[in-house]
């Protein structure tokens, strides 16, 4: 099975704090990998190191076998890695459609061709399809800042898929989203995974969400990998139970 992403010996120290302390994992093509762990176990720091938001203290990131450690977030995105953030990150004064066009435009042609080309970089149709796919049709021309929290979460996820990425890292997609919206989000993610063969890594606290969505789960605790395997294996692991529930 081809490995889309491989992380080797990832470490990130903040002074004396070892936020991430030697993490190894890989992501196979087409799978949905979940990363879980208690608050402060280093999940988001790990994400930020992989995605070039933070410079890792040590370690290596391979994208389809090629080293991409320390690339700028924008460069990594051009190589087909997309993400969402833990806190909401949409562009509030742009409309929903404009948000989506923005999410895809930097992958169309060159800067110069974009300056002299069409205002929408030829992406209006693609944006409309994405809007329909995420069932945001009635909101297409609304400013993103005026949407409800759950709707913004959907838009946030939709933006991550606009450029047809190889790999999408989702940082707590379910956080603060109500059950109806959560079901919609899960269904959409599964559909993209099934129809386009997109590969995901999901950080999540919501156990039901992770266990039902992911094919494989990595459990982190205190900056290290505690266990990994299928959701059933992980749930049965005594070390995981202890990390989550204590003695």
């Amino acid at each position, binding site marked *: 099975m081809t490995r889309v992403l491989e992380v080797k010996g990832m470490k990130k120290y903040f002074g004396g704090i070892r936020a991430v302390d030697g993490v190894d994992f890989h992501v196979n093509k087409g799978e949905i990998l979940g990363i879980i762990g208690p608050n402060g176990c280093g999940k988001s720091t790990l994400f930020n190191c992989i995605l070039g938001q933070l410079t890792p203290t040590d370690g290596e990131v391979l994208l389809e076998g090629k080293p991409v450690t320390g690339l700028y977030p*924008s460069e990594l995105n051009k190589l087909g890695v997309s993400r969402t953030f833990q806190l909401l990150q949409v562009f509030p004064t742009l409309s929903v459609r404009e948000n989506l066009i923005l999410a895809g435009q*930097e992958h169309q042609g060159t*800067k110069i061709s974009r300056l002299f080309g069409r205002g929408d970089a030829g992406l209006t149709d693609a944006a409309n399809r994405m809007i329909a796919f995420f069932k945001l049709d009635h909101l297409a021309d609304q400013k993103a800042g005026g949407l409800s929290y759950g709707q913004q979460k959907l838009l946030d996820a939709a933006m991550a898929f*606009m*450029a047809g990425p190889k790999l999408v890292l989702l940082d707590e997609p379910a956080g603060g989203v109500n059950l109806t919206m959560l079901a919609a989000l899960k269904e959409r993610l599964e559909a993209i995974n099934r129809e386009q063969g997109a590969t995901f890594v999901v950080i999540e606290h919501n156990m039901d969400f992770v266990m039902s969505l992911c094919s494989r789960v990595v459990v982190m605790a205190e900056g290290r990998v505690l266990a990994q395997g299928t959701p059933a294996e992980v749930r049965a692991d005594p070390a995981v139970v202890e990390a989550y529930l204590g003695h």
Partner: protein
Amino acid sequence: MIRRLDPDLAVIVIAAPLLWFIPAGFKSYGLYVVSLWLVMAIAAMGLNLTLGYAGLKSLAQAAFVGIGAYATAILTKNHGVAWPVAFLVSGALSFGVGVVLGFPALRVKFHYLAFVTLAFAMFVFLVARNEEWLTGGVYGFSNIPRPVIFGLDLSRALPFYRFVLVVTVVLSLAMWWLLRSPWGRAFQALRENWMRAASLGVDIRTYTLLAFAIGSAWGGFAGALYAPLVEFIDPAPFAISASFVMLLTVVVGGSGFFLGPFVGAFLSFVLPELLRVTGGWDPLVFDPGVPGPLGFSPTGILGLVERARELVAQRRAAAMRAAARPMLEGSEAR
């Protein structure tokens, strides 16, 4: 299918011929004031790109007008260079300096960046005042020639005003195109959430430098018109206070609104001339009247227009909902 005309573009297309004919009867002083309005609107348009669209706090726009004005004055008066060449050189020079000034913006943001640009504005002012060999120092430059373009003599007030109008329209259209292109969207993304923008492939470094450079170039273009308009320049109009007036112009007009600079420049540069009738009491009208409204509309005059439009849309939607309710309730009853 005919697409709906963009409202900003529509205003340019409608206003241009009106502005061509209406001031025809003005005396030379009136023509000077409307010319000044357009020139300063060009400079404000540049700052509106840097500040309003890209969100980069710059306090140096008047310095770029100064760079353009001095470059044009030196080239056309001392070296006999044709005005169009001096105009392009002024823009290019400001663009280049703008790139350099953009580098601190890659490291610092918000008011820290404002201080860096403030230092630069002070530097330009000091060069203009002290380097007499280049700029004429406090005595400045007088008798700056007005251009002759394609055999048209623009030395009289009306032809020169119309020439300024043509340049303004061309620069407005160029800015309109830039802002509706993917670049404009990238600039706004920079302002709203640069970290998210980077994660979507937006090249933060290049767009930050471009936002500074293009905004500065518009300052330089404005300067290239300012020098022959006033026919005399000294360092005073490019001092730090002038950069603050440019900031006020952009913010009062409506920062991040395409037409904001025209509204703002009218208030900053034309209104004080109109208020001369008050015989020295003009600050009593200007100070509460122009910056004052920002208290209840932080997004400027055009922000108020936008809000009114949203309110109308909301009312209309509410009316439609109210009209639809009996139908919905009726169907439920069945």
